């Protein structure tokens, strides 16, 4: 009891409360735009796909269908949450949360550029090992999907989950190696340092093969077309989320799209110079860095939708072949080449 009062008096101080309040404020400031961005990513995807198919995409809810994501969210909120009788109920409810929380946690270390008023870096936690943090947290994502497939106690979700698990684990390996090559180039694992190291040249130019491999890997990592085998509608009904409805389904959906945005931001920071303008000249560097980062994220999201609109789905053995027999040796080779080049020429650290 004495200890408790001791803790209560020393911990509950004005400074601590202020720190807590500002941290929560920053978290909201990041999470709300990310979630809104996710809602409009669905709209963006449907519009782009529509135009690629010579359709209009969503048109009826609001001007240009702009209110469609909100209508979808409201619909999902008011649907009946259905839990299959033969499922493992606890796991069934935990799984969507496990799929959604990690992708949002990643945003804690993503830097948004310099504050246009004060010049300080805008990031929630500027930790040394930002890259490692992202890789570690995204590797937890797979549990939500695996548990969902198992807890549903149904064939198709199970198959979808096993596929998804194998796929995400496989591509994480080559992704990690590519990221390692970028770290060697930048000489740091801090995301802000990596961006600042790209002031001379964005890394996608010296590391072009790695950039291409990384783009393909993030498609597989996010379970996106053409690697969307975990949710291949034609063969698996809808994959791991077949048995889900209402908000728990919405959480999977949210998780998938937020993961897309997260991975786009990660790619933009690793290869496309983060918040840096393409050229450090007058009209371009007047635009705040956050806008540049946003534009780059949108460009990569467009690439993801573009891939969905153009490419047919891979067969599962082709996917595994690409991951293990092509990307893994190539990224290894690239890592060795980068290491030699950095040893001989020095890295690009700012």
């Amino acid at each position, binding site marked *: 009891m004495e200890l408790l009062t001791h803790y209560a008096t020393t911990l509950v101080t004005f400074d601590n409360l202020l720190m807590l309040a500002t941290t929560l404020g920053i978290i909201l400031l990041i999470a709300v735009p990310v979630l809104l961005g996710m809602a409009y990513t669905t709209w963006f995807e449907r519009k782009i796909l529509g135009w690629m198919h010579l359709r209009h995409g969503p048109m009826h809810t609001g001007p240009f269908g702009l209110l469609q994501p909100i209508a979808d969210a409201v619909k999902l909120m008011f649907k009946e949450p259905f839990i299959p009788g033969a499922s493992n109920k606890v796991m069934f409810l935990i799984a969507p949360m496990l799929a959604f929380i990690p992708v949002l946690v990643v945003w804690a270390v993503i830097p948004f550029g310099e504050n246009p008023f004060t010049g300080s870096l805008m990031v929630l936690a*500027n930790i*040394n*090992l930002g890259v490692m943090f992202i890789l*570690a947290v995204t590797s*937890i994502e797979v549990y939500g999907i695996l548990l969902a497939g198992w807890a549903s106690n149904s064939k198709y979700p199970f198959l979808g989950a096993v596929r998804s*698990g194998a796929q995400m684990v496989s591509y994480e390996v080559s992704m990690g190696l590519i990221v390692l090559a970028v770290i060697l180039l930048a000489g740091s694992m801090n995301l802000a340092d990596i961006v600042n190291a790209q002031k001379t040249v964005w890394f996608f130019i010296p590391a072009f093969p790695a950039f291409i491999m990384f783009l393909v890997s993030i498609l597989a990592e996010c379970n996106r077309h053409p690697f969307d085998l975990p949710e291949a509608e034609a063969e698996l009904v809808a994959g791991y989320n077949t048995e889900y409805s209402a908000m728990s389904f919405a959480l999977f959906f949210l998780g998938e799209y937020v993961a897309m945005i997260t991975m786009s931001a990660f790619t933009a920071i690793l290869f496309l110079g983060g918040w840096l303008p393409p050229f450090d000249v007058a009209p371009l560097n007047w635009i705040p860095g956050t806008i540049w980062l946003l534009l780059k994220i949108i460009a990569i999201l467009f690439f993801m939708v573009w891939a969905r609109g153009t490419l047919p789905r891979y067969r599962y053995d082709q996917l595994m072949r690409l991951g293990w027999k092509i990307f893994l040796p190539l990224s290894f080779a690239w890592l060795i080449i980068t290491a030699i080049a950095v040893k001989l020429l020095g890295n690009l650290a700012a």
Partner: protein
Amino acid sequence: MLPDLIFALFATGILVGAGLIIAARNPMLGMLGMLVTFINAAGLFILFGAEFLGLLLIMVYLGAIAVMFLFVLMTIDLEFFKLREKPKAYLPLGLLTVAVLAGEFILAANYGLFSTNVTMLPTGEQPQNIIQIGNVLFTTYVLPFQLSGLVLLTAMVGAIVLTHRPRSDVKRQSITKQVLRTKEEGLTMTKPKLGHGTGTNVAKHWKPKSVAK
């Protein structure tokens, strides 16, 4: 003060997770307990300033090893109650583990290996322990490091040797072969006479089914 409280939080998390592993009837729930334990252990690592090790723990154990566990649990048909039939059979092994752990604990406690120096996650200004680990790993401990790499390589080769078997009943796809295929290999142009078929091999081996008259 705050680090103390966070330590208590992570430590409780580890104990709850570990308890869940042992007590859970459903192996899947035990698996979840393992996840909780790993995450909290990583939290402790980070709290003590070993942020690289903490994140590595999550990446390797949660991201790869535990996923493999989960795969096995998901795909084999577990008979939950058979595991409980003979708890006494596991007793010697359990006692041995307890003895080893207790020994380690006593050694650590007596030689002052318990650190009371708790720090928060280092930010950009502090020295990075990844550099220190790298320095030690590739100089002092380079041979043990190489040796552990070899052990892992052996395990990898072993796994492939044990599971790989040549199969003749499977059609393999060679993408290079398919891509490099020319028109001449894939296509035969014939001018069949009326009523004689194409005269190619396909037609020779084809036998008509008996037609009902």
